[in-house]
């Protein structure tokens, strides 16, 4: 822990490709193709520098201009977000898209930051470490905003439950999410577990983190003030995640190739936990001027982004970087994705205090450079200049593609193939059998085999977690002010219609947040798609982005940031478009949150919203017929907004004791879940709804029409509640009563199902495959 270190190579300095050398050898062949650059991109680098890049520069450009870091295929579509952000929406944002994570104002001087990111491919290669480092990465993003991380969530998607590879991937991913998050002391408050054949070779591991801070403590990633020190702190740098870049290092080796470099990153959650506490102490001491986490593209990203967001240049002595593996070459050090590292910009006068705090936490910290007057990022290796670039050209001015897009030809026939012709249950017994089949199906079954592996209590602020509709955590211990978050996406809907599918994901997450009584404030998204080089995929992507952007405007909630994951495909076959949406809402006192299960006998059950014949793309068609076709349920965001207001008011005024949103599997599944939650039964009647909405009992039970929830209303509040609904034009129907004398659910005139039958069906599926 000093300003210099002997851990990098000593004595003999092997040959490196310097800027001088690059100038003198313009025709030297470079492996730009192997590094994933296109010929015109390589030419562009030469134009920017007015010479050929050094191998270190080539390393930086190639990784920063990759799809993952530069968003080169998606960037042009983000204008939809900007174009659809109104003044009303902007007011809620303290920091918007573009920073490590967006920040929203939740009132009383509190700011909350949240973001979801993907770690899909690494989790397929090495499920445990891939998922673990996915959690680690998103937590560092949140820390870099100045916040204390307060919760995590994990939207997951796997292939067929019964495929042998799912049994390799799922347990590893879940253990990795838990292993890392639990060890960090962050409650896991929700997520998703979805199975579909389309994810067999491309499981999706998305991770979301929420953090909180006082408004004045927001930090940004920028390097300003000439003379300020650039400090790398946290874990040592190893060969993690370098993989392909080694071609560069081999170039500069006189003899032989480079040592074997792992393409997987291994996480050390303990190191990250200590780093979190250390950062929070650094923020408290106000010794940090700018801060950036090290994630994808490692030092290449951190140095170029800090420098390009600041007002000067930056100079870095790369040989000062503490190494875990002394044989690493400069190109590799620049690209290493070793975990649990951060970079800070610190005024010289505060350096000692900074170092002292790091020492207290046993965190290694090294000054590796400083902010300079100029406007270049200059990196040296044992005194020789190996990088001299305008940082913006690396970090922000990467290539932008207007990739061709075209509505896929298959869509017409897909949409024509609706569920109308499928055989439907008609008798009460058939309806009951279908309900039990659905409850046992992989997507609707009880997920506690997964979620019990996550600590949901740590920090002592969790007011709701799985299996309720949203995770809810307290931010302010005095007042109880806190946030609710839910993530959702139905990829089948998005496959049928990506614009509507994205809006349905948004609507569902929004509804889940409102269902617990929180006012939706802002969203983050993780856009998981196939290859952008496929015109059909690109069309799906644009549709989804437009759907989200326009949907957000209608709901009045801004997009704070997110993540794009392309190339989720096996051969020519892409995954269903999967735009996962995370919605964050605020409550002034989370102790008043509305849980999803009913408890009190005699309370009246109301169904809010209208039910239409909407089974296309739904869970019933998927499970009973393996069918996907038709058009997804109608999106009605005005109805969602109204329903949200009703739910938030009802919660604030104590008009409802339980509320559960209707989504996959429709009313039947929602009733079963609300019953199983506390083991208290219900009597239900469907006739009034069937008559009003012109549907049969099957449709009433299994349709997935949106903007619907069931609520349990205390008798004493029934009049106030229905008056409120009537006054505001909220469609509502009294469909049942909570009844502890009924064992399970009695759907009058149709069927009765006992609690044991429900639980037996619901809880056996995952343990049967993965063990108790």
């Amino acid at each position, binding site marked *: 822990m000093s300003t210099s270190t002997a851990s990098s190579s000593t004595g003999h300095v092997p040959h490196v490709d310097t800027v001088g050398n690059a100038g003198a050898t313009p025709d030297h062949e470079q492996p730009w193709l192997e590094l994933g650059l296109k010929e015109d991109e390589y030419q562009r680098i030469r134009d920017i520098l007015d010479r050929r890049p050094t191998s270190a520069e080539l390393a930086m450009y190639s990784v920063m201009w990759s799809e993952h870091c530069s968003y080169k295929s998606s960037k042009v579509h983000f204008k939809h977000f900007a174009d659809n952000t109104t003044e009303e929406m902007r007011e809620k944002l303290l920091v918007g898209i573009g920073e490590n994570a967006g920040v929203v104002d939740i009132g009383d001087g509190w700011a909350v930051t949240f973001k979801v990111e993907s770690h899909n491919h690494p989790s397929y*290669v*090495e499920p445990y*470490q891939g998922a673990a480092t996915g959690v680690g990465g998103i937590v560092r993003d949140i820390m870099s905003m100045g916040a204390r991380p307060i919760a995590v969530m994990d939207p997951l998607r796997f292939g067929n439950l019964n495929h042998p590879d799912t049994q390799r991937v799922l347990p590893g991913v879940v253990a990795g999410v838990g292993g890392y998050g639990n060890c960090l002391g962050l409650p896991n408050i929700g997520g998703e577990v979805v199975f579909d054949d389309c994810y067999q070779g491309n499981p999706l591991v998305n991770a979301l983190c929420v953090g909180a801070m006082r408004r004045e403590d927001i930090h940004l990633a920028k390097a300003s003030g000439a003379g300020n020190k650039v400090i790398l702190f946290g*874990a040592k740098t*190893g*060969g*993690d995640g370098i993989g392909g870049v080694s071609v560069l290092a081999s170039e500069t080796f006189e003899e032989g190739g480079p*040592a*074997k*470099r*792992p393409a*997987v990153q*291994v*996480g*050390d959650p*303990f*190191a990250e936990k200590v780093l979190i506490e250390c950062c929070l102490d650094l923020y408290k001491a106000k010794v940090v001027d700018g801060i950036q986490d090290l994630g994808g593209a490692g030092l290449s990203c951190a140095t170029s982004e800090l420098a390009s967001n600041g007002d000067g240049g930056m100079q870095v002595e790369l040989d000062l970087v503490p190494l*875990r*593996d002394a044989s690493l070459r400069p190109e590799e050090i620049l690209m290493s994705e*070793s*975990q649990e590292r951060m970079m800070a910009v610190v005024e010289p006068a505060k350096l000692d205090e900074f170092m002292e705090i790091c020492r207290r936490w*046993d965190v290694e910290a090294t000054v590796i450079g400083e902010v300079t007057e100029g406007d270049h990022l200059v990196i040296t290796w044992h005194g020789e200049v190996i990088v001299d670039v305008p940082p913006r050209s690396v970090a922000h001015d990467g290539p932008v593609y207007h990739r061709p897009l075209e509505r896929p030809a298959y869509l017409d026939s897909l949409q024509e193939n609706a569920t109308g012709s499928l055989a439907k249950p008609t008798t009460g017994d058939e309806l009951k059998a279908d309900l039990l089949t659905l409850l046992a199906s992989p997507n609707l079954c009880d997920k506690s085999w997964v979620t019990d592996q996550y600590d949901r209590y740590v920090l002592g602020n969790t007011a709701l977690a799985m299996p309720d509709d949203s995770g809810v955590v307290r931010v302010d211990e005095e007042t109880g002010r806190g946030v609710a978050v839910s993530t959702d996406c139905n990829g089948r809907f998005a496959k049928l219609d990506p614009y509507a599918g994205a809006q349905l994901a948004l609507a569902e997450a929004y509804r889940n947040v409102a269902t617990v009584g929180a006012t939706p404030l802002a969203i983050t998204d993780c856009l998981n798609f196939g290859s952008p080089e496929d015109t059909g995929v690109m069309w799906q992507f644009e549709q989804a982005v437009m759907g989200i952007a326009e949907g957000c405007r209608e709901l009045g909630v801004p997009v704070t940031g997110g993540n794009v994951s392309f190339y989720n495909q096996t051969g020519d076959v892409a995954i269903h478009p999967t735009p996962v949406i995370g919605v964050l809402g605020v409550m002034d006192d989370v102790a008043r949150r509305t849980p999803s299960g009913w408890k009190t006998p005699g309370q009246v059950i109301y169904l809010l919203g209208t039910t239409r014949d909407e089974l296309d793309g739904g869970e019933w068609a998927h499970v009973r017929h393996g069918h996907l076709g038709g058009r997804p349920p109608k999106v009605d965001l005005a109805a969602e907004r109204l329903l949200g207001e009703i739910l938030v008011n009802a919660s604030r005024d104590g008009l409802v004791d339980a509320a559960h949103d209707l989504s996959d599997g429709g009313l039947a599944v929602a009733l079963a879940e609300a019953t199983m939650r506390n083991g208290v039964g219900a009597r239900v009647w469907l006739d009034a709804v069937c008559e009003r909405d012109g549907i049969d009992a099957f449709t009433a039970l299994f349709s997935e029409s949106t903007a619907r929830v069931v609520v349990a209303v205390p008798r004493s509040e029934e009049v106030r509640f229905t008056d409120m609904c009537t006054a505001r034009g909220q469609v509502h129907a009294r469909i049942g009563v909570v009844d502890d004398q009924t064992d399970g659910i009695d759907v009058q005139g149709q069927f009765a199902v006992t609690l044991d039958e429900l639980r037996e069906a619901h809880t056996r599926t995952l343990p049967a495959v993965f063990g108790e």
Partner: protein
Amino acid sequence: MGNVVIDVMLKPEILDPQGQAVNGALPRLGFDQFTDVRQGKRFLLTVDGEVTDEVLEAARKAAETLLSNPVIEDVVSVRAEQDVDASRAEQDEKDPGR
């Protein structure tokens, strides 16, 4: 009854947080002669009869498919237990001060 011992270690280039933790603790306990620590796994497989070549071959296969994760680990040795006991006895002789 025979035994097969299988040793699995993280590949040298892979971060080993457990070994690091031990490495950090040793000097605090006054052990300052060690410069690095790596932690791996040791499996002891029992067979009913003798450890034949077939048994060893099976153990080797098991080591490579189930007992190690080739993405991050190496199987560093698969051997009949006798070898260990032998080396251990030998070691003990070398150091009578135990």
